[in-house]
C-alpha cells in the first residue's frame, strides 16, 4: 500500500469521526481500520464498489451494527452509548428498499415517522411530497423502487437533521427524478445547515455535489480528501517516453493507473503537478499534458489499482 494517498483530513470541527472501525461477519471482513472524518457542513461522497463496507460504516453511525474494534462519534456523541440522541440528529436513507412498514399507506408512514422527530417540518414534508409526486394513498409496500426511494428521502429530509446519511440514495431513480432530487438536496443544504454523507457506486450522479471524497475498498478507507485537493493532485499525465522506459523510481506507489499508446504513456499519478512533471522529465519523458480527472475517472483510477507484489 502506498503511503502517498491522504486519509487524514485534520480539519477543525468534525460532524463524524470514526477511529479504527473493524468488523467481521463470520469469515468476511466488512470493515478494516476505518477512520472516517466528515467535516461539519461538508458534502462527503463515499465511493466504492458494492460490498466495500460503505453501508456497514453508516450502520455503525446509526448503532445498527456494533464493531469488533474502534470507536465512532457523531457530533461528539458515541452512538453505542447515546444512540437515541445520535439518531435524532441523523436523516438516514438505508441501502435496503423495504425499510419502513409496507402495510402502511405512504401518508400514514410519513405521519408515523414524524411522531419520532420533534423537529419534523410538516409544511416542508408536504412540499417534498409534492415535488416527489408521492402517492399518499398507496400502500408503501406496493411502491416501485424509485417511488419508495422518494418516500425515504422525504422521511430523511423533513425533520431537517443536522446530518444526512444517505446510502445509495439515487438508486432506482430515473434520470429526471435524479436531477430533481439533486436540486432538492442542494436547496435543502442551502436552506438548512447540514452535513451530508452520501455513499454511491454511481459516482457521476453526485459529482457536482461533493466537496469531500472518500474511497473505500475491501473494508478499507483508502483515501479521503477535499475535492479541491483531489482535483489538484490527481492528474492524468500524457508523455512521450523512450523505448523500454520504466518511469522514475521516486514515483513508485504514486502511479495509480498506467496506460500507453505507442511511445506515449498515459499515467494517473498522485502528487503536486510541478514535482511529478519534474520527476517525469528528469527520467527522460516529455510531458505533453497533465489533466485533472473527473470524479468518476478518479474513482476508477483509485479503485482499479491493484497492489503489486
Amino acid at each position: 500500500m502506498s503511503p502517498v494517498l491522504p486519509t487524514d483530513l485534520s480539519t477543525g470541527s468534525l460532524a463524524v469521526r470514526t477511529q479504527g472501525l473493524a468488523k467481521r461477519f463470520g469469515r468476511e471482513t466488512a470493515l478494516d481500520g476505518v477512520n472516517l472524518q466528515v467535516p461539519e457542513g461538508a458534502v462527503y461522497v463515499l465511493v466504492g464498489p458494492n460490498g466495500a463496507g460503505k453501508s456497514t460504516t453508516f450502520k455503525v453511525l446509526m448503532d445498527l451494527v456494533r464493531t469488533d474494534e474502534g470507536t465512532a462519534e457523531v457530533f461528539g456523541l458515541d452512538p453505542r452509548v447515546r444512540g437515541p440522541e445520535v439518531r435524532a440528529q441523523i436523516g438516514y436513507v438505508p441501502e435496503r428498499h423495504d425499510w419502513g412498514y409496507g402495510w402502511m399507506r405512504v401518508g400514514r408512514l410519513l405521519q408515523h415517522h414524524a411522531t419520532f422527530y420533534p423537529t419534523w417540518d410538516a409544511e416542508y414534508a408536504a412540499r417534498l411530497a409534492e415535488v416527489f409526486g408521492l402517492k399518499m394513498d398507496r400502500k408503501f409496500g406496493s411502491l416501485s423502487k424509485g417511488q419508495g426511494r422518494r418516500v425515504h428521502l422525504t422521511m430523511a429530509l423533513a425533520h431537517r437533521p443536522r446530518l444526512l446519511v444517505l446510502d445509495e440514495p439515487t438508486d432506482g431513480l430515473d434520470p429526471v427524478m435524479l436531477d430533481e432530487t439533486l436540486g432538492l438536496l442542494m436547496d435543502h443544504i442551502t436552506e438548512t445547515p447540514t452535513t451530508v454523507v452520501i455513499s454511491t457506486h454511481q459516482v457521476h450522479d453526485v459529482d457536482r455535489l461533493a466537496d469531500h471524497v472518500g474511497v473505500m475498498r475491501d473494508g478499507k478507507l483508502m483515501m479521503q480528501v477535499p475535492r479541491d485537493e483531489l482535483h489538484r493532485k490527481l492528474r492524468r499525465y500524457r508523455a512521450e517516453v523512450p523505448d523500454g522506459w520504466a518511469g522514475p523510481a521516486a514515483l513508485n506507489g504514486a502511479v495509480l493507473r498506467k496506460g500507453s499508446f505507442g511511445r506515449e504513456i498515459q499515467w494517473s499519478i498522485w502528487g503536486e503537478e510541478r514535482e511529478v512533471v519534474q520527476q517525469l522529465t528528469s527520467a527522460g519523458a516529455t510531458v505533453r499534458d497533465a489533466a485533472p480527472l473527473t470524479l468518476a475517472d478518479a474513482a476508477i483510477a483509485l479503485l482499479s489499482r491493484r497492489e503489486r507484489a
Partner: protein
Amino acid sequence: MSGAAETLHPVPARGVVAREALRAVGQSVRLEVGAVLALLLGLLVLMATVQPQGAGGADYDVSDMTWPVVILGLFAPLAVWKHDEPSRRAYLWSLPVERARHTLAKVASGWTMLMGLVAAYVLWAMTVALVTDGNITINPEWEAALRPTLPPDARIRDLTLSGHPWLWLVPFTAATTTYLLGSILALLADHPLRVVAGAGFAFFVAIGLLESTGGAAEHTADSLFVHLVTNPYGIVTEVTGVVHRFDTGPGVLNDQPNLGAWARATLLWMGAGLAATVLAARRYQER
C-alpha cells in the same frame, strides 16, 4: 464539540412514543382483532338461534373458559411483531428511541389490545350463557361440593359472583402470562412459531420417554410434569385458578378454586414472564 450539545435536536417524548406504538400496533393487528370479534359474534348468533328449547342452555365453566384466551395470548405476539421480525427490525431500530423502551412500548400496546379481546370474550361468554339460559358455573364438581353451603335454589351464577369474584380475573391474568411468554419468543427467536411447536413437542417427547423407561426416571418425569404444570405453582393453577390434586384418593373432590394458590402461581409466572420480557428487550443488541 462542546457547543454541539446546545444545538442537538431533541428526542421524542416518552408519551408520544407510547401513544404512537399503541396506534401503530392497533392498526397493524386490526385484521386479526376483527377476525376474532367476527368469530365470537358469529358463534353467538349461531348459539342463540340454533340452541333447541329446553336443552338446558350452554353452561360456561369459568376456569375451563380460559383456554381459548390462553392460546390467543400465546400467539398474539406473533401478530404484534409480524412487521418487525428480527431480520427486518432495521426500521424500528433506526428511530431515535431507546430500543428496550420502544420494544416494551410495543409489547404493552399489544397487551392492551389483547386485554380488550379477553374482555370481549368474557362478555361474550356471559352473553351466550344468558341468551341460551345456561349457567355460568365454576366447575360441575364444585357445585356438588358447595351445594350444601348454599340456599337450596341458589344458582351457581350467584355463587360465582359473590363467592369467588376473583375468578373473573383469571382469563386476564392467564392471557397476560402466555402473552409474555409468547413475546419473549417473538423478541428472541427468528422463527417463534417453530420454537413453540418444537418446545412443546420436545417437552412431551421427553416426558413420554422418561415415563416409558419406568423406575426412577418415570418418577422424575412425573414430578417434573407435576411441578411445571399442575402443582400449586404450576401453569395450570395460574391459568385456571384451580389446584388439581392427583395425590388424594379416588372419589374425593380434588379440584378447588384456591385464591391463595392462584395468586402465588400468578405472581410467579407473570413475574417471571415480565422479567424475562424486559430482559429479552434489553438483551436485544445490534449485530
